[in-house]
């Protein structure tokens, strides 16, 4: 059976992982209250989505 000839060095390991980062979530500004919310999601602060109250956040 084939085996690794060398232990993978820290540099080589870390270079491999240089592309493993998770991308940031893209956020948008709520048109009602100005807070940040995820695209295609109701605003977590005021419950508005596309200029309309969608859900009650007060409770």
């Amino acid at each position, binding site marked *: 059976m084939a085996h690794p000839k060398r232990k993978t060095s820290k540099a080589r390991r870390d270079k491999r992982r240089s592309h493993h980062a998770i991308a940031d979530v893209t956020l948008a500004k709520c048109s009602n209250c100005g807070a940040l919310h995820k695209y295609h999601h*109701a605003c977590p602060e005021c419950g508005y989505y596309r200029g309309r109250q969608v859900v009650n*956040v007060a409770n």
Partner: protein
Amino acid sequence: MRHQVKGRKLSRTASHRKATMRALTAALVKEHRIVTTVAKAKELRRFVEPLITRAKEDTHHNRKEVFSSLQDKNIVTKLFTEVGPTCKDRPGGYTRVIRLGFRQGDGAEMAVIELVDYNDIQPEGKTTKKKRTRRAGKTNTPTSTAKEAPKTEAPVAEEEVAEEVVAEEAEVTAEAADESSEEETEEK
């Protein structure tokens, strides 16, 4: 290849899945707007929308077909007398799914699913609740001062009048509710 693979299993057996869809449909027809997981909301569209299309035309056959899916005559009646006529002019697309973010506990993504033609029923009540949160934050000072100013001018007189008005209104509304309760239920 994933040919001919439609829908979601929702980690349930066929009978369990069917029962879930019935329960969600009953809730949606009653409340016009429910909060559930995104997967269930999206699956519910596939289940409810054909039923609402059936409910637009109130015939014996359509009622039997819908009842075979729901097995609940109260929900069927409500669907045909209330939801069907309301959605009459809409050529499909009776529901709207809006994502809400992730649930604390299991991290499931939640969503509101609502009947599109019942836009104004619940948001009104919710807007009043939302205004309360606003007062605590941004517009705290102007509203509080505006409220306090007239009260200090004639606090005793206003309170008495307000109480009387409230009492009268309560009586009137109670009577009206008793008289037109049957009509209202039919309208709803």
